[in-house]
């Protein structure tokens, strides 16, 4: 399992691996928002948590179809399926690798982007905390979507259509947690809900993803 994780991380870092693409996309979204809504700093500060969450979500979505598609094309997935690893473990490791290469950099970069959007000082802690808690769920749910669409020729668009509705609860609680934090309100409830969703998806969704992957390998 560790070998698979190391390999996936290595592949992401090497040329053409797509590492950093998500980050660049995140930056572009954050840059474009003020062009769209105007440069008024009070307005930007008010929408900053939501924009950062949406940007993270879209950046995550961008790299989802790579999770299995490349391994599917070159036959690695067939070979992994016959290897002595349970499919659930493969799926979980893939989700972890996806999070480490997209979610984690986004969390790290979020403060800088918050700066661009005039995020108030007291908002940084809840925002980053909400992203740390929420982005793993985004990766795990996305892995499920990728497992559903892996065999399809043009699965990319369909993947977004399937995954985005599933992202709704995570987005709501994540953004709500950040927003309440920025406003200086108590954000325990959304934080607990967000943590609950993340834990629940990590615990249960790999079984569904593995089932979908097995069906697709037939």
């Amino acid at each position: 399992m560790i070998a698979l994780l190391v390999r996936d991380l290595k592949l992401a870092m090497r040329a053409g691996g797509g590492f950093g693409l998500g980050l660049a996309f995140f930056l572009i979204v954050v840059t474009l928002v003020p062009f769209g809504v105007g440069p008024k700093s009070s307005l930007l500060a008010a929408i900053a948590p939501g924009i950062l969450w949406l940007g993270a979500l879209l950046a995550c979505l961008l790299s989802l179809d790579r999770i299995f598609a490349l391994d599917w094309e070159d036959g690695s997935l067939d070979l992994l399926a016959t290897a002595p690893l349970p499919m659930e473990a493969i799926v979980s490791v893939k989700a972890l690798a996806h999070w480490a290469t997209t979610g984690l950099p986004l969390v790290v970069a979020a403060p800088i982007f918050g700066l661009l959007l005039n995020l108030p000082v007291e908002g940084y802690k809840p925002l980053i905390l909400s992203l740390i808690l929420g982005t793993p769920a985004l990766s795990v749910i996305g892995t499920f979507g990728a497992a559903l669409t892996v065999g399809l020729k043009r699965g990319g668009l369909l993947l977004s259509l399937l995954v985005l509705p599933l992202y709704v609860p995570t987005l709501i609680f994540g953004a709500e947690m950040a927003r309440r934090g920025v406003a200086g309100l108590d954000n325990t409830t959304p934080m607990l809900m967000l943590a609950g969703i993340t834990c629940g998806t990590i615990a249960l969704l790999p079984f569904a993803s593995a089932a979908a992957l097995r069906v697709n390998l037939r």
Partner: protein
Amino acid sequence: MVMAISVSDLSVARGGIKVLEGISFTLASGQALVLRGPNGIGKTTLLRTIAGLQPPISGKVEATPESIVYAGHTDGLKATLSVLENLNFWAQVFGNKDISGAMKQYELTTLADRPAGALSAGQKRRLGLARLLVTGRLVWVLDEPTVSLDRDAVAMFAGAVRAHLGQGGSALMATHIDLGLDEAAILDVAPYRAKAPEPDDFDGVFL
């Protein structure tokens, strides 16, 4: 003689359509079996079913658990990883460490640091076949293993198979090339081609 794979009355389907039916054979350790048959007859489907990648329609495949390693048309190589890294990865997945034997057998030592993407088709295939050696599994299920290999490489492969059989392993492969493996039995799957179902049988499978 220890039984490696036992297939009884197996039917397999591709894309929801039954292609082969009633196949039975046994493969003992130390034996090799070559599948023959025209294109599209379902050799790949049969091999994938035996490897456990898809469920059979009916019949049974019996094998020691975790004894089968499958190699398909694609080699599962990552273009940006080096030959060594690719092979090391598969060795680790199967819980082995030593890959030097496999590197030597397929003469990959000089290519060790080359990225797999820069290899020729034949070299890639050699790397894909070297993977079989590092898995340490006894039953090889191979689909067209000799595609894009030159004559020397085919001999290398035949040598590897022979050595594998000598160590109590076994091999099941679909190939059209004569490997020079005299000990290999040949099974022509053409007679097992699935017949069209009866028209009245309009039940669960809609036919």
